[in-house]
């Protein structure tokens, strides 16, 4: 795809503004980015308000290849489509049916987890599993088969999906379930929006006795201690996660484990956040010294905190959501995430090697997260979680230096037969993706020819 061709198309998309008869319903926007904010190329974009508009948008001549996207919390290019056009699903945010007796919810794909919680929490239900931000759409949760702190119990989001509504090009509307369309169902869960436009999602909620959690925090001094804590908590605690200090290679950190409190109010979160990062921080703010100091401070804070406390679900699951657009802390050049999973049997070699490489590079990761995955399989063919240990890191984008470090990390992950999380990725080599997601060819076969993403063009070569 050449740059000139795309720009010519973009100009065509601007015509409605000039007062001519609209030839396309897409407009060109240069402020559409993914959460990492590295790729700033313009995107052709449209946001339908009703499902009946989708057929025309999918067939729109502005580009042959569309991609349904949600709140764009994916960090890299899996929610971007410079080579095509984006259909923003966030206007399709209606609940379709909610049964407070059985805990079944069917909603349009653009409804956010945040909105769903407002409705389900007061009736004693929660999501079966939740990622670390509530600003994720249900369609995005399916398309990325997201996981949470309770993966060892609940599996990934796809494990709780009962049915999906899929619109494919040519106007075919399908209801996908394990039984009726098993192949397309499995290809769509974790399928990065490539099998068609996900119109709605029906899934099973989890009952909660209260909206607060009893949280225990335990500092650890080494990876061995982390694995011991994780192993002993699997049966006793529904939610586990650890923060790890990557500025030193000792593997020190803080382990938290939590259960829903047996009694307490069923109060939904306050949907207001006054704290916003209003502008890009200058690039030098996050440097080796400041990140080191932050990690030191955070480590001491965790040690000081009592080992037990009661937290609201939003404080426990979504601490970063309290500051809107925190990604701007990383400055105008943006940031990159690196999340890998290392299968059991390889962790004692691979994780120390990863931490050593990161500490040596001095490319300090601000917040690094460590968690063990359980063995509950997901129906999704491109699902990321697999039994083992996952490590998530973010790095300010310093161009080649950051990419070079990530390539060195790749080598360790490949050696360990691990995998990288597509939702976090904007740079993994095609070969690495294809090796670690052996079912990718099945998905490629079931992919809708009218759907594509920058990520897929890159990794399916």
């Amino acid at each position, binding site marked *: 795809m050449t740059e000139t061709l795309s720009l010519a198309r973009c100009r065509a998309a601007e015509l409605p503004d000039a007062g001519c008869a609209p030839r396309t319903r897409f407009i060109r926007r240069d402020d559409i980015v993914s959460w990492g904010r590295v790729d700033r190329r313009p995107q052709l974009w*449209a946001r339908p308000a009703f499902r009946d508009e989708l057929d025309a948008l999918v067939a729109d001549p502005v580009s042959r290849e569309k991609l349904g996207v949600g709140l764009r919390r994916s960090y890299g290019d899996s929610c971007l489509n410079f080579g095509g056009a984006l259909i923003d699903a966030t206007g399709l945010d209606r609940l379709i049916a909610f049964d407070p007796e059985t805990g079944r919810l069917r909603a349009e794909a653009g409804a956010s987890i945040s909105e769903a919680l407002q409705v389900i929490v007061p009736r004693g239900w929660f999501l079966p599993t939740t990622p670390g931000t509530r600003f994720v759409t249900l369609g995005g949760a399916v398309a990325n088969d997201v996981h949470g702190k309770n993966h060892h119990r609940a599996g990934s989001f796809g494990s709780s999906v009962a049915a999906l509504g899929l619109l494919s090009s040519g106007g075919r509307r399908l209801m996908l379930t394990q039984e009726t369309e098993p192949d397309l169902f499995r290809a769509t869960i974790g399928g990065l929006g490539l099998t068609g436009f996900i119109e709605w999602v029906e899934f099973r909620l989890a009952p909660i006795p209260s909206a607060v959690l009893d949280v225990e925090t335990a500092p650890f001094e080494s990876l061995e201690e982390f694995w011991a804590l994780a192993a002993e908590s699997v049966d006793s605690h529904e939610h586990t996660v650890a923060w790890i200090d990557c500025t030193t290679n000792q593997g020190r950190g803080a382990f938290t484990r939590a259960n829903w409190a047996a009694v307490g109010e069923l109060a939904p979160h306050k949907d207001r956040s006054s704290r916003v990062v209003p502008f890009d921080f200058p690039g030098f703010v996050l440097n080796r010294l400041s990140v080191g100091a932050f990690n030191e401070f955070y480590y001491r804070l965790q040690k000081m905190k009592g080992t037990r406390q009661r937290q609201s679900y939003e404080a426990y699951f979504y601490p970063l959501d309290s500051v809107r657009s925190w990604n701007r802390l990383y400055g105008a050049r943006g940031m990159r995430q690196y999340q890998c999973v290392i299968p059991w049997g390889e962790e004692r070699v691979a994780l120390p090697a990863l931490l050593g490489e990161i500490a040596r590079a001095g490319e300090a990761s601000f917040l690094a997260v460590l968690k063990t995955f359980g063995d509950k399989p997901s129906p999704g063919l491109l699902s990321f979680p697999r039994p083992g240990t996952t490590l998530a890191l973010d790095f300010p984008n310093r161009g080649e230096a950051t990419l070079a470090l990530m390539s060195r990390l790749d080598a360790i992950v490949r050696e360990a037969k691990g995998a990288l999380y597509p939702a976090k990725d904007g740079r993994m080599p095609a070969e690495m993706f294809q090796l670690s997601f052996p079912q990718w060819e099945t998905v490629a076969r079931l992919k809708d020819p009218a759907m594509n993403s920058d990520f897929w063009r890159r990794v399916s070569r």
Partner: protein
Amino acid sequence: MSAAPKRIAILGAASAIAVAAARLWAVQGARFALVGRNGDRLQAVAADLRARGAASAEPVVADCASADAVATLASIADSLGGLDIVLLVYGALGEQSELERDPKAASDLLQTNFVSAAGWCLAAANRFERQRSGALIVIGSVAGDRGRQSNYVYGASKAGLGVLVQGLAHRLSRSGARAVLIKPGFVNTPMTAHIARKGLLWAQPAAIGQAILRAAVKGGPVAYAPFYWRGIMTIVRWVPASFFHKTKL
């Protein structure tokens, strides 16, 4: 929080601003009659409101621009067992250059935004005055505060509606019922989706929804939404024409 669920009729119920307000009322267990042209869309909105806690939500398929306001409100009041709130949201933005080329299209826009809306407002006000309670809430626009070359036809329709609602508020003031004009500024809705760059002044429909709920119970006859538009429009109104005419606003 009142004990009896509110009975609410929404005119133009599939619009983003209407939905934002209705969702807040739904949480309180309100009962809805949703008036609009597209039955499938209204069904989708109704299901959403029921899932969020509405005691009931039923579509009423009608073209607000031509429907019989008195009869429609009467039948809605019958089916809901009364009426507490009428929210008028429908309206067309139009394309200014086309409205200038084709005065007939401009007349049609005025017919929809002002003439037909005035009929609904009077019908609702008569009902509320009789029952000595109820709130008529009408969506106007900051565009009605000063005629500007870029959208004066739309602005005129909303200005006319504003004076009408102002008069109704005066008339109803002794009855216990109320009439309020909401003047939103820039709102991120499908009506404005074609505008690519949205600056700091753009509000989400949810913010307008909150202003509507507030206006249903308290405050003066004109509510700007968000509130800071009152200040902005005061300045815009006072700019002398000799200077204003040099701008392209």
